[in-house]
């Protein structure tokens, strides 16, 4: 087992494009760390630098306190699960899993027992003699997992391993992967652009944007206290409402002419532009609040999402079905508890109040 340490890591591609910039991160031993961010933010690049598939332009990558910058992928004792699984099409499932062990000169008897064990864990026992093209997407995914675990590596790397599966299988597999990783205790780095996957799977969540880390923390910590507008809107579904507001001083802001008390501690000069973040699930119908106009109601079964306008601004609200019999065109008076309000600087997008009461 090992910890992963990135010190001021940067990657500039041959064309001069800087995909990752001065990035530092420590993943403790046994931790399941999820890298999440929009497409093109450098997640795969980072993962591939840890794997040794991409050269590191600046900084150092260490596994188990050993700098691995100049080691070949094979020497780093890692296993990687690719988005397209990268199964060897001309080899049977058994040989796919045995390949890495054979390359390392493990005796055939040992290989057979390790593959059998992995096949049993992953429910692949009946598929061992098939070729990859005769497998379903979910089965291929499991073979790719099997190929990673038979090697008993120090570190697992996953690059969007579930994105080719249908929604139901994805939910199932993310639970399976998490269970497996807990049981094996292998330090893992997992890349995804799906915030639900990120929230549900991570011990440690890393939100990336344009080659840098926006925020690192436990999933719930990031959910409760997003440090920037970017993180606030990226984590959480449906995304947080961001409303344009102006400070009136004394911790009071004005949105669409409505006075909203945030916190006395918020010391901003009057006239300062801010952004107020409210999660859709924190809005509720109240006697004393502001008036919104319903545009559309989406029903998700247990919940419904009400899309509405507040003056010139749009916002969404998530309520339990039947709690609010909303219809489009209708006006609702809603409100939000002050501890659920997030305040960001309109200019920099950074959070202004360090932490919320809740």
């Amino acid at each position, binding site marked *: 087992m090992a910890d992963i340490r990135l010190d001021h890591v940067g990657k500039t591609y041959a064309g001069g494009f800087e995909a990752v910039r001065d990035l530092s991160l420590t993943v403790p031993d046994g931790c399941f760390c999820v890298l999440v961010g929009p497409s093109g933010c450098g997640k795969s690049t980072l993962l591939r630098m840890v794997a040794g598939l991409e050269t590191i332009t600046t900084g150092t990558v260490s596994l188990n306190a050993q700098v691995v910058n100049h080691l070949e992928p094979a020497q780093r004792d890692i296993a990687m699960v690719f988005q397209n699984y990268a199964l*060897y099409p001309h080899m049977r499932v058994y040989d796919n899993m045995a390949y890495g062990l054979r390359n390392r000169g493990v005796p055939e008897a040992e290989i057979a027992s390790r593959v059998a064990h992995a096949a049993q864990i992953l429910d692949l026992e009946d598929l061992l003699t098939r070729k990859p093209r005769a497998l379903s997407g979910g089965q291929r995914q499991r073979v790719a997992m099997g*190929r990673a675990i038979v090697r008993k590596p120090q570190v697992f790397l996953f690059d969007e391993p579930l994105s080719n599966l249908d929604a139901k299988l994805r939910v199932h597999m993310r639970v399976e992967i998490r269970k497996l990783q807990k049981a094996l205790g292998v330090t893992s780095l997992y890349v995804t652009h799906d915030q639900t996957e990120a929230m549900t799977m991570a011990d440690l969540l890393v939100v990336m944007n344009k080659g840098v880390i926006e925020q690192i923390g436990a999933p719930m910590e990031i959910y409760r206290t997003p440090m920037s507008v970017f993180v606030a809107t990226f984590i959480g579904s449906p995304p947080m409402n961001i409303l344009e507001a102006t400070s009136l001083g004394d911790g009071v802001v004005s949105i669409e002419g409505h006075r909203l008390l945030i916190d006395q501690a918020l010391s901003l000069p009057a006239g300062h532009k801010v952004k107020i973040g409210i999660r859709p699930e924190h809005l509720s119908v109240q006697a004393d609040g502001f008036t919104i106009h319903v545009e559309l109601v989406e029903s998700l079964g247990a919940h419904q999402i009400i899309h509405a306008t507040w003056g010139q601004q749009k916002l969404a609200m998530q309520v339990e079905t039947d709690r609010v019999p909303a219809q489009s065109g209708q006006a609702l008076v809603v409100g939000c508890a002050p501890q659920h309000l997030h305040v960001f600087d309109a200019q920099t997008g950074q959070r202004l109040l360090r932490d919320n009461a809740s």
Partner: protein
Amino acid sequence: MDKRVFFPSKTVPLLLLLPQLVITLVFFYWPAVQAVVMSFQMEDAFGTTSEFVGFENYTAVFTDPFYYRAMGVTAVFSTAVAFLSLSLSLLLAVMADRDIKGAGLYRTLLIWPYAVAPAIAGVLWYFMFQPSLGLFARMLRDWGIDWNPLLNGDHAMILVVMAATWKQISYNFLFFLAGLQAIPKSLIEAAAIDGARPFRRFWTIVFPLLSPTTFFLFVVNIVYVFFDTFGIIDAVTGGGPAKTTTTLVFKVYADGRLGGDLGGSAAQSVVLMVMVIALTAIQFRFIERKVSY
């Protein structure tokens, strides 16, 4: 996936196929049928009349000791050319497939030889290795090798093999390069993580995945050396010295075109045709089984 298109009547598909069918019939089957007809006939000395002679031409072919020599020559020639052109072009394609500076130029340069006509290629090689004038011939002489393809049969064979291989490398290179580029990069990366060094990656991943391409090229190359090399042989050695480079197809050409024995030449080409058909059929039946994955 089912890609079939359904037509309401049979006339439209037939009309669409017609140009292709006409070309195939006129340029492939008609000459073939002509060859078969001619192989049963013998022409008089002036080429004005011909008479039906049954299997006489075939008997003559199979009792001619030179015919068996030509078979031996063809076996050596085709094995050497197929092996060399496939392995060299695979090597070149593997090198061109890497992300290196100037890869585009390198690829273009490698494709050029294919645009050179066989006879020109033959003449080039002839001059380079011509004992008294050729640049390379002199170099060999300086190294103490008594190089003389005009007198030494082995030297002549080496020369035609080189010329024919050189001509075919571009074609094979193109297909190998396309085949290599069709192999997903992530497979190679997965193998690298799985601890396979480059040489082992090539033999356990790349080469097996290329096998459909290799098989296809093998068939094409065999047909090439059997049928398509007489231009090169004619230009380089003219089949000599002492018929040491006279392959079956060159003998067809030499006997028919130069020797004027149309009937005998036709009989030989029919035999050659049957051999290539049989060879290809055997290749498809027995080798194809091993290359599918």
